[in-house]
């Protein structure tokens, strides 16, 4: 596979872009976005709806032309060589985008023809067997359930053995079992050297990623290996266990230094970026009979923090 990458392309970076910008009318949807995606990584795009995740993905695979910025995807220039990028990228859209009025086999066959694959029939047959849909090949795609549609869409994306998978909220509306299976498949592909860029707003999916970029209102707020994200944000967390956590939650929320109070099972996670202010709050509650202990902030706290703060961050940036 490595022989396909043209000479001169950075071996480690499958996607390397800087300053990517896109305006829709007067609205700036993506604002000077930089990213470096290493080969074989699972890179998560997180952010609220409308934050520019889909637009960014579309620019990366040549569906949209950026208004500003440059870079390469699979070693090809994203502005001038969109056609070459499309040949080697598997793009799974947010909405099911195969033909509902074509059968499962017809859909796969159509996609295979779009990529001009050799041994088309065998490849489609194989994909049907892998999917476990060989005996339902004649069924219309529109009659499949959400989970099956998603598996079919992924199979269609993989027909041409792409080196890079762009998945735009692939598990929206899919049940937990199917989601787990889906992620097993993604992990397996990444193990084979396929690079995966996936957008999501599910926390349990974000923790599966090797790298994470958090985007809000077109701007990248945080970017790095998943384990470093909480440190990057500088979040301090205290874990509280004891009686009447609901009452405590209401009591803590308005206090200075407390930026986030989240319930995790039988404990309350109290977080903030101002360690000194948070410590004062903890000291004031020291004798209330509950167990307080400091803990390294996890990805979960970090995501809740990012999701909740997206608007504020953006307002601060804009001011």
């Amino acid at each position, binding site marked *: 596979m490595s022989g*396909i990458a043209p000479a001169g392309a950075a071996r480690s970076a499958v996607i390397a872009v800087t300053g990517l910008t896109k305006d829709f009318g007067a609205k700036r949807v993506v604002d000077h976005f930089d990213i470096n995606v290493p080969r074989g990584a699972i890179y998560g795009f997180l952010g609220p709806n409308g934050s520019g995740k889909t637009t960014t993905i579309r620019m990366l*695979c040549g*569906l*949209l*032309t950026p208004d500003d910025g440059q870079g390469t995807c699979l070693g090809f220039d994203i502005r001038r060589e969109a*056609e*070459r990028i*499309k*040949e*080697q*990228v598997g*793009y799974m*859209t947010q*909405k*099911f*985008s*195969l*033909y*509902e*009025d*074509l059968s499962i086999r*017809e859909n796969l066959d*159509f*996609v295979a*023809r*779009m*990529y*001009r*694959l*050799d*041994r088309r029939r*065998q*490849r489609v047959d*194989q*994909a049907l067997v*892998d999917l476990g849909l060989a005996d339902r090949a004649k069924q219309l795609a529109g009659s499949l359930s959400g989970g099956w549609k998603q598996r079919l869409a992924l199979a*269609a994306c993989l027909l*041409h*053995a792409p080196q890079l998978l762009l998945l735009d909220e692939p598990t929206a509306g899919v049940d937990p079992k199917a989601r787990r299976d889906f992620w097993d498949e993604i992990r397996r592909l990444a193990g084979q050297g396929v690079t995966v860029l996936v957008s999501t707003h599910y926390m349990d999916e974000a923790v599966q990623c090797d790298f994470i970029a958090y985007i809000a209102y077109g701007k990248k707020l945080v970017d790095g290996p998943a384990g470093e994200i909480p440190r990057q944000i500088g979040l301090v967390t205290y874990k509280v266990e004891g009686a009447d956590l609901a009452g405590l939650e209401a009591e803590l929320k308005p206090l200075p230094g407390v930026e986030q109070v989240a319930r995790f099972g039988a404990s309350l996670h109290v977080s903030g970026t101002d360690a000194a202010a948070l410590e004062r709050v903890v000291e004031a509650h020291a004798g209330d009979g509950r167990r307080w202990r400091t803990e390294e902030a996890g990805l979960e706290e970090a995501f809740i923090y990012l999701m909740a703060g997206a608007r504020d961050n953006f307002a601060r940036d804009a001011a």
Partner: protein
Amino acid sequence: MNREIVLPPVKLAPSPRLSFGRFFAVLAKEFIQMRRDRVTFAMMIGLPILQLMLFGFAINADPRHLPTLIEINDSGPLQRAIVAGMANSTYFDFRGAVHGLAEGEKALREGTANFVVVIPPDFERDVVRGRRPALLVAADASDPTAVGGAAAALQGIVAGAIGQVLSGPLQGLAGGPAPFSVTVHREYNPEGKTSTNIVPGLLAIILSMTMTMITAVAIVKESERGTMEMLIATPVRPVEVMLGKILPYVFVGYVQTVVFLVAARLLFGVPFEGSALAFFLGFNLFILVNLALGFLISTAARNQMQAMQLSVFTILPSILLSGFMFPFAGMPQWAQWLGSGVPATHFLRIVRKVMLKGGGLGDIGGEMGALGIILAVIAVVAMLRYRQTLD
């Protein structure tokens, strides 16, 4: 998992600029979808026949057997010939005689008769003497369409009757103008049958309607359902998608036209007098214009409903301003200008010229030129808009 073992790895070669295989795949896909969409498929084949029946049989701008009363104040071979001629024309159904103007007017007012024909005293003698007597026809003009054709035909009928009866030295009189002001030439449709005129025109309307609408809807459907995003993420080129999507509807246009021509011949006895080549070229150009128009609409419409509405919006001028419903020359100047921009106007003329008047390629040059200009304008605007909508 064993995919890698069973099959050789996918070879990634730079894709050619244009691929027949991809174009053909889009084409085949479009046909499968067309076949599965039963309602649309039925509409494409059923619509021409249905419209033909409706317009051909139901709409009759030249009604016959209109109730007529007659007041005869003179008798002789000429009067009898006129009355017989009128009855034979099938326009007039003689229901009886009236005596005096008041009786005739009452019948008209009550609607029991559409016409009252009064043959004045000494009519024959005055004709012979060259005095050009007036043959009075009182007509109920509250419905102009109902009586227009009959009134117009009257002059010819009377002239014919006079020609039959008058012979020898009186023959010179037969050619004289009758005292009627309406003159209509029915050179290509001597019987004045509406269907002969309306049926060929209907082809222009049916093609406008289905070609434009189906093309617009088919393209918009692709973006509305989100499948366009999948399509353009593959190496397929826009021109392969467009040709692949549009050509099936050219085929539909061919089928519609064949169905139409056969039905027009069998049901209405509409002749096909002229050059098949001229018809073929004109009809292909017209289909192209409509596909381009459908394509243009698809760049403006966000969903199938909008595409449908915009298509209907373009169809009304085709019906009203093209000369299909109302005579083109009878419209005010500004309406004629508007009508000249409507593709159906020119195709209508091509069809009438070729089918009814026996026209050939040389006769339709002007119309072909006009259609060419309209096509160029629509195509340029559509391409400009298409580029915008890609981003």
